[in-house]
């Protein structure tokens, strides 16, 4: 029998009570939130449970919401896939701006290793317990986290390029 969304919802709610919340179907994927302290526990359950069988971590990425409340400014979004029943889920973990820290899942899925490094590199989200949390795509000397919304796309100090000549102002670009 194929795994349906209500089973996933019910099982997780029974198992983890308040740590999981906000279940909703967005297009073709069931999306829900997990309390950031419970991520490794829930992922281990999702991977190893005989009914859930989410054997594959498709992708994980960071998000930044500078306008949200302080404790929800960062998020890590995980996509998992059950290859046996062919079901995908999307898991969101919100993190506070002052201390964006979450447990690593690289011990559960080897593929998370570099993806967590990438998320750290671009958002400054700290993955606790990660074996090698250092920058991966940007240079080691970099001090900022470029995918945060406050980081400008272009260097504001450039003198070789005057935006006025291109019809651009700070309001329209």
């Amino acid at each position: 029998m194929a795994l349906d969304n209500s089973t996933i919802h019910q099982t997780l709610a029974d198992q983890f009570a308040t740590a999981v919340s906000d279940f909703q179907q967005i297009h073709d994927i069931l999306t829900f939130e997990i309390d950031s302290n419970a991520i490794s526990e829930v992922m281990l359950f999702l991977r190893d449970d005989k009914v859930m069988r989410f054997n594959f971590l498709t992708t994980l990425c960071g998000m930044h919401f500078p306008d949200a409340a302080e404790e929800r400014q960062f998020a890590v979004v995980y996509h998992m896939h059950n290859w046996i029943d062919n079901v995908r889920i999307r898991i969101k973990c919100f993190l506070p701006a002052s201390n964006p820290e979450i447990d690593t899942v690289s011990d559960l899925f080897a593929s998370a290793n570099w993806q967590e490094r990438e998320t750290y590199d671009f958002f400054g989200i700290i993955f606790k317990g990660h074996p090698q949390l250092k920058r991966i795509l940007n240079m080691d000397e970099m001090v900022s986290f470029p995918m945060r919304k406050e980081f400008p796309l272009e260097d504001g100090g450039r003198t070789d390029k005057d935006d006025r000549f291109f019809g651009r102002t700070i309001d329209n670009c």
Partner: protein
Amino acid sequence: MSDLLLPPELRYAAIIEKRKNEDGSELSILNLGPTHPATHGIFQNILLMDGERIIDGEGTVGYIHRAFEKIAENRPFYQITPLTDRMNYCSSPINNMGWWMTLEKALGIEVPKRAQYLRVIVMELARISDHIICNSVLGVDTGALTGFLYVFQYREKIYEIYEEICGARLTTNMGRIGGFEREWSPLAFEKLNILLEEFPPIWREFENLLARNRIFMDRTINVGPISAERAISYGFTGPNLRAAGVDYDIRVMQPYSSYEDFDFEIPVGKSGDTYDRFCVRNEEVWQSLSIIKQALAKLPEGAYHADVPDYYLPPKDEVYHNMEALIYHFKIVMGEVPVPVTEVYHPVEGGNGELGFYLVTDGSRTAYRLHFRRPCFIYYQAFNEMVRGQMLSDAIATLSSLNVIAGELDA
């Protein structure tokens, strides 16, 4: 501080210091890349070697990182395709189509059957050109240059077809929201038919040249193997996973663009080594050719794009003579198109595996967040585990059979 956080050369220097042999010989560090002809792309591997044997290694990537995810947050939706071109530049049309399909899913646009079939044709052409490069370059890295030069002219022929469809060759920027920018010309179909006629015997010959070749088999069998369990844990998808014996293919698991209408096989290997990866890709080319033939035979009549004036640029003649067309043209070009607040994840079977687009919109003219699931980036981290204990020349063969494309790796 963990040892792994140190630059690899410092870490290895300490190991070399500790492990001096009695006869005075010692381990050495080899810097493979970033611009080494055998890596076929800009990435560096710092290897700790015992003579010719690899003891450990660490990959350093990011040499051609171009911040695509950041740029995508600052561009209107139709300006994101050129970014996708430059990821896996060996099969750009798959990336282009994957992006349009993601957007169509977010906007709820139904693409006409004809456009879907045309997309399938162009995506399979892209897969063929991708596999031509990977397999023939694997031949080069094991010492057979002839096959490479021989089949490469057919990649050129495929590029001529792209040129006929969209005007570009390598970075195609093909398609529009809802379909294609124009109907395929008769010449495009003519070139396609010539390719379908001429290419199979050439590919068969190339296969015969390598597949049962003693030297090639000795150089590739049991080289860089990976088990199915490790491959899944490492996030392998596509031909590299199928070589390890797992029949996971997005075209079958979650058919998009009418793939369910076609009859094709998913080739799988057994041991996940370089030879199996070669064989899987070889067979996939045959399957792609068969899909293209089926799509051409069943190609329905109809429109080549969806009727979505909000997103699809009107013909230029209409813009000059028709008020509504002018308004739509202006709004699309200025990026003032209605976009719902939503989030979608759409995977396609790229040349190297599951190419996914995770798009989050906030109703504005740009993406709030666009994350690319780049198969190369995810599976390349297994490289060191795969080559540990192997010879240096085997590492080169493993690397080219993984088909790591630097553009996709670094985004």
